[in-house]
């Protein structure tokens, strides 16, 4: 860059991804100090280093400086390049950790991104690839990111601690995004789910399905939970099982919940029946929170509203997650944008808890690096 933009400075390792993603999109450098400065093991962890390497792969001309102890990171973003990329994610975090940021960046590449990610597809910390596929992709479609090449495929499933999973994510590029008006979530017409098991008896998945259904059937009859038992090399390196559930409304809102078994050698064994029931209850909690976007994708929706055309976008959300609240602050510092936040009390209606209506005018971000054909 000819004239260097003012850099933003932060402390601590939390919210690292959103800081680097917003830095890349806005072109403003960031400096992050005191990363675990008082920890016995100070500095960036492997999974964060892997994330920074991934950013380096999909951009062109990024400048990354890390001090000797890894407690300070300086990042001057390059241009989003895209293309065909492969990346081995750290098994300390799920592929979802990396994919969430890729979903924010992929529509703004020079060349459409097609990326192979290897690592942990399902864990207890990050949104799983199954949930992102079922919730984040339909959300991006609302903004006009669509087409045949838009897909997220699970080739191999990998559970922690060994990993060994593989997914392929490809996303078309867009010059501008459409504004959205999502103010009515609509009523839930069906519930779908995926019960998976790897390197354990396939019966586990069936046991999960029965117990989850026993709770959800009290609300709606249209429930179908697929069972997925990958074998051989497609089952990764560690045993485990889990469930993800998605409730779909008549107006195309997707609310999700998920649970995974404890990683091998960590914690007590989880009964598939308990896991199924608890996951069903988590979905009911998510339905209680409600809104037009589920709690994991709130920040993605707000980002794409910010980057939309100069037009009004509205979205009704459930209570904002701590991650989203921080994301709003970051949006303000990187893009000088503030949302109008109106609470919508639930009142006497039997539709769960209070909601929040978020309104903003897009900044008219356009992808100038996209090549014309």
């Amino acid at each position: 860059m000819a004239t260097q933009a003012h850099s933003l400075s932060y402390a601590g390792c939390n919210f690292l991804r959103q800081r680097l993603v917003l830095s890349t999109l806005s072109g403003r450098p960031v400096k992050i100090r005191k990363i675990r400065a008082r920890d016995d093991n100070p500095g960036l962890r492997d999974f964060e280093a892997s994330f920074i390497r991934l950013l380096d792969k999909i951009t062109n001309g990024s400048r990354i400086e890390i001090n000797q102890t890894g407690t300070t990171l300086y990042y001057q973003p390059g241009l989003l390049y895209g293309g065909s990329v492969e990346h081995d994610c750290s098994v300390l975090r799920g592929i979802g950790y990396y994919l969430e940021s890729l979903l924010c960046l992929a529509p703004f590449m020079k060349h459409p991104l097609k990326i192979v990610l290897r690592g942990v597809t399902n864990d207890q910390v990050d949104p799983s690839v199954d949930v992102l596929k079922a919730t984040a992709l339909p959300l991006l479609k609302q903004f006009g990111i669509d087409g045949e090449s838009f897909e997220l495929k699970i080739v191999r499933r990998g559970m922690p601690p060994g990993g060994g999973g593989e997914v392929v994510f490809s996303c078309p590029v867009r010059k501008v995004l459409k504004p959205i008006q999502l103010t009515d979530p609509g009523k839930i017409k069906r519930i779908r789910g995926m019960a998976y098991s790897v390197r354990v008896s396939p019966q586990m998945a069936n046991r999960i399905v029965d117990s989850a259904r026993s709770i959800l059937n009290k609300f709606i009859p249209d429930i179908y939970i697929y069972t997925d038992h990958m074998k051989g090399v497609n089952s990764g390196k560690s045993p485990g099982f889990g469930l993800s559930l998605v409730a779909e409304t008549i107006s195309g809102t997707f609310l999700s919940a998920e649970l995974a078994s404890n990683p091998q050698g960590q914690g007590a064994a989880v009964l598939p029946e308990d896991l199924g029931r608890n996951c069903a209850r988590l979905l009911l909690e998510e339905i209680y929170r409600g809104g037009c976007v589920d709690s994991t994708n709130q920040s993605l929706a707000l980002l794409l509203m910010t980057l939309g055309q100069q037009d009004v976008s509205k979205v009704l959300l459930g209570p904002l997650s701590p991650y989203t609240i921080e994301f709003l602050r970051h949006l303000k510092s990187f893009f000088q944008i503030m949302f109008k936040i109106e609470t919508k009390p639930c009142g006497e209606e039997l539709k769960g808890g209070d909601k929040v209506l978020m309104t903003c005018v897009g900044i008219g971000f356009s992808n100038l690096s996209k090549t014309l054909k």
Partner: protein
Amino acid sequence: LSKPSQVGSGQKLGSRNLIDETSDIEDLLKEEEDYKEEKNDPTETSVTEDNEEDDDTREELGGLFRVTQPDRECKHKADSLDCSRFLVEAPHDWDLEEVMNSIRDCFVTGKWEDDK
């Protein structure tokens, strides 16, 4: 369950660790030395003469020294896990009929508004 009203009060906490600056990359390490430890470990209480900080949670000692009591929550937040999942802190008891009824109309099987 977090209420939207918490948004406003939390906003003050976070803006504190954000400093807008125009620094060069070259003095990246140099600045690190100059950088003062403003917030110490929450477990220890240190005495400092710095009066410029506008921290409300401080008491005066003999009219000369101020005892810093760093914001625990803020410190904890800066280095905690970077995760987008919104965990349920106070789960409902979904076996109770009353709780189940609270989301009854979110489903197509529930009551519909007159205009639909």
